[in-house]
C-alpha cells in the first residue's frame, strides 16, 4: 500500500505541466490530496488587475483531483478526467499562492466522483470550487 502511494506521488511530481506551473504536492493519501501553486506573473489572465487566469486554476484543480483518485485505495492504476466543472467564486488576490484540496466523495468500480476547492491566503473564502468524474482502474 505504501508502495502504491509512493508511486502515485512520484507520478504526480513528474507531470511536466504541473512542474511548469510550480505545483507542490503538500499531501496525498486515502483519496484526498492538497497541492499548492505559487503566484507567478506568467499566470496572469487580466493584465489590468493582475489576477491569475482561470485556466491556471483549472490546471491546479485537475491535477489535485487526479492525485486524489490515484491515491484512493480502490483505484489500482492511473486515472483520466471524464469531466470537470469549475465555479469561479471570486478573483484570487494577486501575489498569493493558490492551494487546492480535493477529495473523492464516491468511488465505484469504474468512476470516481471528486470535489475540490481552491483558496488563496484567505482560507475562509474559496476562490473556486470544482466537481468532476474520473476513470478508475479496479480489480478485473
Amino acid at each position, binding site marked *: 500500500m505504501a508502495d502504491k502511494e509512493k508511486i502515485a506521488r512520484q507520478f504526480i511530481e513528474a507531470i511536466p*505541466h504541473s512542474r511548469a506551473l510550480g505545483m507542490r504536492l503538500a499531501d496525498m493519501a486515502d483519496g484526498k490530496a492538497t497541492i499548492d501553486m505559487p503566484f507567478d506573473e506568467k499566470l496572469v489572465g*487580466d493584465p489590468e488587475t493582475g489576477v491569475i487566469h482561470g485556466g491556471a486554476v483549472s*490546471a491546479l484543480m485537475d491535477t489535485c483531483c487526479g492525485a486524489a483518485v490515484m491515491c484512493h485505495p480502490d483505484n489500482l492504476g492511473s486515472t483520466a478526467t471524464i469531466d470537470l466543472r469549475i465555479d*469561479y467564486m471570486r478573483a484570487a488576490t494577486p501575489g498569493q499562492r493558490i492551494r487546492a484540496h480535493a477529495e473523492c466523495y464516491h468511488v465505484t468500480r469504474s468512476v470516481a466522483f471528486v470535489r475540490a476547492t481552491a483558496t488563496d491566503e484567505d482560507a475562509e473564502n474559496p476562490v473556486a470550487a470544482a466537481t468532476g468524474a474520473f476513470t478508475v482502474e479496479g480489480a478485473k
Partner: protein
Amino acid sequence: MRAPRRPPEPVQVVKQRRDATLRALVDGVPYIQFLGIEFERRGDELTGILPFDQKLIGNPLLPAIHGGVTAAFLEVTSIITLSWTYLWKDVESGAIDAEGLAKGGMPRLPKTIDISTDYLRSGLPRDAYARARIVRSGRRYASVHVEAWQDNRDRLFAQATGHFLMPERRE
C-alpha cells in the same frame, strides 16, 4: 436623389484594423503567452491554436496533454471569441482605436462564472485547435460552447460550456 454612397474602405485598411485589435486582445495576456496560444482569423471567424510543447504534457507515459491545459485552452478561446464579437461593431465602424489598444487601452475582458469541460479522448502530443460559438450573449451574461480537435475536425478531443460575466461598456 440618393445621397452619394461612401466608397468601401481599401481592404488593407480593414484588415489592419481587425488584426491590430485581435493582437491587442491576445498579446496583452501573460497566461495566453505562457501556453503559446495563437489565433487565426478568417473574416470574423476565430480559431484558437495550441501548438504542442513538452511543458503541456500531463501524462508522460502516454504521453497526453494535461487536462488543465485543455480546459485553459477552451476557456481562453471562449473569452477571446466573446471579446472579439463584442468589439466587432466598433472595429468595423472604425470607432475603435487599434493603436490605442496596443498601447494599453485594452478593453475589459469577460469574467468566467463557470466552465464545464468534457474530455472525449486524450489530447495527443500535437497541435490542437478550438472554435467557440456564442449560444447567447445578453448585456450582462453570456453562454458559450467551445469545441477542440486535433487531426480531424470531426473527432473532438474536448468540448466545454461556459458562462461569463460581460464587462460594462466604457463610454
